[in-house]
């Protein structure tokens, strides 16, 4: 390269272009680094602060007053599981069925409309979904409840599941469906037994992603599930949730509670990380061409 530059006596214009080229490439590399940096910082800081207070007590004990040793978040963990359970009962059927409709039955225009609405739904701020659940359920029941919180989480899960179901069904080769139809199997059985079964691992990872997202949602639970410092598993009562407990402890003035909040944050990050890792692993072969 050096040689050719000297040989042809590169004009300043080219030298400038090459300089711009190197500068811009370096800037892009720097952009890559500063994007990853906060992630690594958050991840290691949460791990460092959380892992010291993460012990068995955290999972099996109830919250304790400041100063008492061995407080945990057992009620919040169970609360989160209940809320996600209710959310899944709403989010999974609606998401999967509408995904099936888009992929298997809809014409171009209806598919476009439903996909567009799904995109809009995924763009609605989660706190608005909280207000919606408040107006629909909390006001009518006259109290905060696990049902209202789970309902809000369920709505938030729908768009992810719809999208993944549709995309995964699209990946199932048409020839498999035709083979099934040719054998005299009815269309709906073909969709359920052949297409859906073939796509199931992908759809399940999508559901896991939706659950990971729902597990960390705080805003829609503030005035639906509301939180609860006692052991509570009835769905028509206010219920504790892990992110709510983290929030309450994080903004408290007590060091001890901060440590527990970090432990909770660590559990959430770990959940997100593991689920994403599973998703990567499962979908790796399917998308290896374009990732």
């Amino acid at each position, binding site marked *: 390269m050096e040689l050719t530059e000297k040989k042809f006596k590169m004009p300043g214009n080219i030298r400038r272009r090459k300089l711009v080229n190197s500068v811009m490439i370096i800037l892009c590399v720097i952009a890559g680094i500063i994007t990853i940096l906060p992630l690594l*910082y958050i991840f290691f800081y949460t791990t460092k602060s959380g892992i010291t207070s993460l012990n068995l007590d955290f999972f099996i004990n109830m919250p304790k007053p400041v100063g008492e040793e061995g407080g945990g978040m057992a009620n919040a963990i169970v609360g989160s599981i209940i809320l996600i359970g209710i959310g899944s009962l709403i989010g999974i059927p609606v998401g999967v069925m509408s995904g099936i409709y888009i992929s298997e039955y809809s014409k171009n225009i209806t598919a476009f409309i439903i996909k567009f609405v799904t995109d809009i739904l995924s763009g609605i701020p989660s706190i608005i979904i909280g207000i919606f659940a408040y107006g629909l359920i909390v006001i009518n029941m006259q109290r905060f409840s696990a049902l209202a919180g789970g309902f809000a989480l369920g709505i938030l899960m729908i768009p992810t599941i719809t999208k993944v179901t549709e995309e995964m069904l699209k990946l199932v080769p048409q020839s498999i469906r035709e083979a099934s139809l040719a054998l005299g199997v009815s269309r709906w059985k073909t969709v359920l037994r052949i297409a859906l079964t073939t796509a199931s691992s992908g759809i399940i990872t999508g559901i896991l992603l939706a659950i990971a997202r729902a597990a960390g949602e705080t805003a829609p639970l503030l005035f639906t599930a509301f939180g609860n410092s006692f052991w509570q598993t009835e769905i028509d009562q206010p219920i504790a949730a892990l992110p709510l407990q983290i929030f309450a402890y994080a903004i408290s003035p007590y060091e001890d509670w901060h440590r527990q909040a970090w432990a909770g944050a660590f559990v959430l990050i770990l959940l997100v990380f593991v689920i994403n890792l599973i998703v990567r692993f499962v979908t790796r072969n399917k998308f290896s061409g374009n990732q």
Partner: protein
Amino acid sequence: MQESDIKISEEISTKEIRSKRKPGDIFFENLTLLFALLLIGLVLFIAIEIYGDSAESIEHFGFSFIFSSDWNPVTEKFGALAFIYGTIVSSILALLISLPVSIGVAVFLSEIVHKSVRTPVSFLVEILAAIPSIIYGFWGIYVLAPFMASTVQPALSSLFGFLPLFQGPIFGTGMLTASLILAIMITPIISSITRDVLKAIPVSQREAAYALGATRWEAIKMALLNARSGILGGAVLGLGRAIGETMAVTMVIGNKAQIKASLFEPAYSMASVIANEFAEASGSLHISSLIEIGLLLFGVTFIVNTFARILIYSVTRKT
């Protein structure tokens, strides 16, 4: 390919097997249709419900709700201007910080690095998008805000202190810190859309540029220019996310309803005031006013997201 296959099978079914269509088929197709319609109905229902619940506030204050910054639950005077200001300024600032970085990281991942680097880095960026916002907020209070107070804000104030933007007391929390957290949170969204859009620009264009003697950056620049409406769509989508972001902002913005020129000053956002006051609101006018803020938030994010999707479809549908 796939479509024509479907068409053929449908033609056959309409001509010959129509009479044989099993009740199970009709039932299942309509069942999936029902769920799809449920999805559309849900979005409409959310809009109607929130509009209905904010009726009291709309009637009571009219347009002055948007133009007044007087928010006082005791005297029952509610005006959302300070919150609207906080949301707009923090989101736009976040976008300005995030956009160049997002485009840079997208180019870095899709055009520069080898696959062995790309795969783990893009995985990490994906994780960044999946971390719950409560954790960003928590990290923001205890790590970013002290760092801003000790290092970044004094530096900005000594360098650019002549600008009103960087004057005033240094708390660590405030508008600037909130914008920075938002910028970190929306970068994965914008960069992943930018990558998708770049992928939709044919490689042959870049190859043609190389063949004409273009440098690598010049070829990339051409691809970026061709993808600009899609990138803009990604940016607008990120903006929509920033506008609706609640927990992280609530924890670092300072939660003080005021309109100040300085970015160091605490501020308040629309989503934050709902998060902080909703559960404790007593009067029905107070609740209704908070829901009206939610209605405004819904309207703005709806418009912003629709605009973003149209821009993104316009690029990615060509392939």
